[in-house]
């Protein structure tokens, strides 16, 4: 009797779980959306390089470890709601707008709402890159110096291209979705 009750309860829980991951849930803003592969690779490579720099002796390793924390926090935000809408670009470029793209509109609105916070995150990354670069120069560490310089250029890429593109996607969806 006890076993049967447990089995039924388990089935009910399983059913509830299946319902909760139905189409409605999949369209909500959440971690379920992927990001463009090129950017996923870029994130992975940046963390890989930073992990290697973190093993360098002294100040370079120390500053790299601080930067890892900031990068991971920023990447998490990007994966959550900044970068997923970019996966719609090929479809939008073909002129396709479908109701199941609404999740991206919600993300774009969040990017707009959080723009000052996102900017602040970039400024913190710049400061940390500066610290890493200064340590690299003192220690004649060309790899760390180049990484820091590339990282600030990547930050500009985010602000100049990626984040505005997400806002454009939001505007396209807003104007075309019923």
């Amino acid at each position: 009797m006890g076993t049967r009750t447990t089995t039924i309860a388990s089935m009910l829980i399983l059913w509830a779980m299946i319902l909760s991951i139905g189409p409605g849930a999949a369209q909500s803003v959440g971690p379920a959306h992927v990001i463009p592969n090129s950017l996923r690779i870029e994130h992975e490579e940046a963390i890989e390089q930073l992990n290697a720099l973190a093993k360098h002796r002294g100040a370079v390793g120390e500053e790299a470890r601080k930067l890892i924390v900031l990068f991971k926090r920023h990447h998490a935000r990007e994966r959550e709601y900044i970068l997923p809408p970019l996966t719609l670009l090929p479809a939008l470029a073909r002129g396709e707008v479908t109701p199941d793209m609404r999740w991206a509109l919600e993300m774009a609105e969040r990017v707009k709402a959080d723009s000052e916070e996102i900017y602040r995150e970039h400024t913190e990354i710049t400061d940390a890159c500066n610290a890493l670069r200064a340590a690299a120069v003192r220690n004649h560490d060309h790899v760390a110096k180049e990484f820091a310089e590339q990282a600030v250029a990547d930050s500009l890429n985010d602000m100049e291209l990626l984040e505005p593109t997400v806002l454009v996607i939001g505007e396209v969806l807003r104007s075309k979705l019923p």
Partner: protein
Amino acid sequence: MSRSVSPFVLAFAAMIASALLGAASANAQNADNGRQVFRQICSICHEVAAGRNRVGPSLFGVVGRKAGTEPDFHYSDEMKNSGITWDEPTLDRFIAGPRGVVPGTRMAYAGLKDEQKRHDLIAYLATLH
């Protein structure tokens, strides 16, 4: 025919000359310190050579330049339309907090809070002509 110059006038002239030399020397010292500040903080994004734009525009000739006008550098609309001409007070405020002066600027820098360092940095930037 020749008239002798009063010792008081000579002393006064010497004081003025000394003050001017002292000021010039202090300014040179500020600019030297400012070069270090530039190297530590700004050079990750900016060059001082004319026409060499990187993540940020070249800072050659920035003092006296109209904001958003360095050739071949893509500025934000906010910067282009700011109406600013970079002089010491505006640079001081901008370096202390870029978005406080030009909301929407893409310069991802929170600001240099140390007043003396800003002063030195601007003294250095003023030498870039």
